[in-house]
């Protein structure tokens, strides 16, 4: 057993093997011959057109829908080996609008899976308090009802509820879809922080390609009929879209988007020295922000500074190369 890992990984590998789902009376399958592996502890985002089979793919995992063909393995074990209800209690599930129970307090909502699993009351209450803290909510929130929370707060509670019984796998179906831009960005950061702490395997459906690029270790692009168009890391997807469909989906500004994935520190040329008066950026600044700075300052290069002083120079030309590479 390995118990010392760089990042905490409590997740489990999930594998789709030739999974097809055909709903009765529908010409096109909702999911077609899907084969895909998500490594333990990784976030996989599913993107694609409406009706492209993303939700169906998720529901196949927790057996809210049974496949027509194929199998899904969680940690190498077929999901058909366990009882659906038992299976679901071991998988975190977050949906759009959170699906919180309006008649239960926040504490009860978070404690609902532990309660189903028969945890003692005290342990359930403690766990709820712990999770509220994890998602950055006040402990007093436990006594409130969902109607008394803001959309962003509800979304965090939805996340806390899914984490309650410490499941190795989380399914999140457009969890942040209903949030405004700023709140969404905050909850995303929140989620990424939590994910670094808990290290679950996550399947995450989104309509928002930018969200996928920000969150995902790997992105699965679906096309109509539930066909997997491409499965790749965000950088790879932006640099080398498999076809026009994927290129279209990631957008004409994919070069710019790619710049969000890299930081100035990664690209800085340590050999160079900056002339006096060149703009200065922190090593953690994304290339996209660096580019914006250079353009607004009318400069050709910027000096990059880390915690321990200057680390090098970054030029407009170099950024252009990253954006243009395809």
């Amino acid at each position, binding site marked *: 057993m390995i118990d010392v890992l760089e990042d905490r990984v409590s997740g489990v590998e999930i594998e789709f093997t030739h999974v097809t789902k055909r709903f009765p009376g529908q010409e096109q399958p909702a999911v077609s011959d899907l084969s895909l592996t998500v490594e333990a502890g990784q976030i996989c985002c599913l993107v694609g057109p409406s009706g492209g089979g993303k939700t169906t793919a998720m529901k196949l995992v927790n057996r809210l829908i049974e496949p027509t063909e194929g199998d899904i393995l969680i940690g190498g074990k077929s999901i058909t080996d366990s009882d659906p*209800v038992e299976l679901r209690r071991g998988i975190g599930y977050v949906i*759009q609008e959170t699906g919180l129970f309006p008649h239960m307090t926040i504490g009860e909502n978070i404690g609902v899976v532990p309660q189903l699993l028969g945890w003692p009351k005290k342990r359930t209450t403690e766990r709820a308090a712990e999770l509220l803290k994890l998602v950055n909510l006040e402990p007093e929130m436990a006594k409130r009802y969902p*109607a008394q929370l803001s959309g962003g707060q509800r979304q965090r509670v939805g996340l806390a509820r899914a984490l309650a019984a410490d499941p190795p796998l989380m399914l999140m179906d457009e969890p942040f879809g209903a949030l405004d831009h700023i709140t969404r960005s905050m909850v995303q950061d929140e989620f990424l922080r939590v994910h670094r702490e808990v290290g679950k395997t996550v399947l995450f459906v989104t309509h928002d390609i930018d969200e996928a690029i920000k969150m995902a270790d790997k992105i699965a692009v679906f096309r109509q009929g539930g066909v997997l168009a491409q499965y790749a890391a965000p950088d790879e997807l932006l640099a080398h879209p498999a076809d026009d469909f994927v290129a279209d989906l990631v957008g004409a500004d994919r070069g710019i988007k790619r710049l969000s994935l890299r930081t100035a520190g990664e690209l800085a040329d340590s050999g160079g020295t900056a002339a006096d008066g060149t703009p200065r950026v922190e090593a953690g600044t994304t290339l996209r922000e660096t580019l914006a700075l250079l353009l607004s300052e009318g400069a050709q290069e910027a000096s990059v500074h880390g915690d321990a002083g200057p680390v090098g120079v970054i030029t407009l030309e170099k950024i252009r190369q990253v954006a243009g590479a395809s």
Partner: protein
Amino acid sequence: MISAPAPTPVIPSFGGSDACVANTNSLFCPSWVSQNWGSILQPELLQHIELTVVAVVIGTVIAFVAALIAFRHGWFAQGFGAISAILYTIPSLAFFEMFVPVTGIGMLTIEIGLVGYTLLILFRNILEGLRAAPAEALTAAAGIGMTPRQTFWKVNVRLALPAIFAGLRVATVTTISLATVAAYISTIGLGAGIQRAIQNSFNTELLATGILTIILALVADALIVLIQRVLTPWQRAARRS
């Protein structure tokens, strides 16, 4: 008010012999009420409460079971709804009379009638309530591993409570008022007093009984609202915010 030791009147409705009661034109004689509280008004009030409680409880149980079946099977919802809607349109007195040949004159006939009336109101409200659970909550319930039975009791039924209570309020107040008509079948409840007062043109008893009926309806309604508040705390929370 101190109630006088109950006299045993020869003619109950003329239990007192003071001037006010003797004068057929007097509108209301408090002395009659205090003298006959223990012997007439209180027993009839208690009978009325009993009629109402029995009808509402039985009606609720039947309506709940019916709504439960209807929730699972759509055809039942339409059938039961149609039948209880027809029952509801029958004039109340005729409805009570209808059962007399079968069930005779007495409690049973009255209760059958009263229960019949509560059914439509309660059935509709309970069924609507059961169907009111938000789709996301139901998807979430299944997705986190509730069994269908747990989903039904922990989500559908709990979220139906506001609608159920709304139905209970209407059904209870309706039953209290309808039960006064039941006295035509059998002298029981506050309706008996109303009937007697009309026959004897005795204003005091008519007013006293009528007011008691209204107070009973108001108190019963308030009581149900109170219970609802305790059982559905999320509703007040939602209104406050």
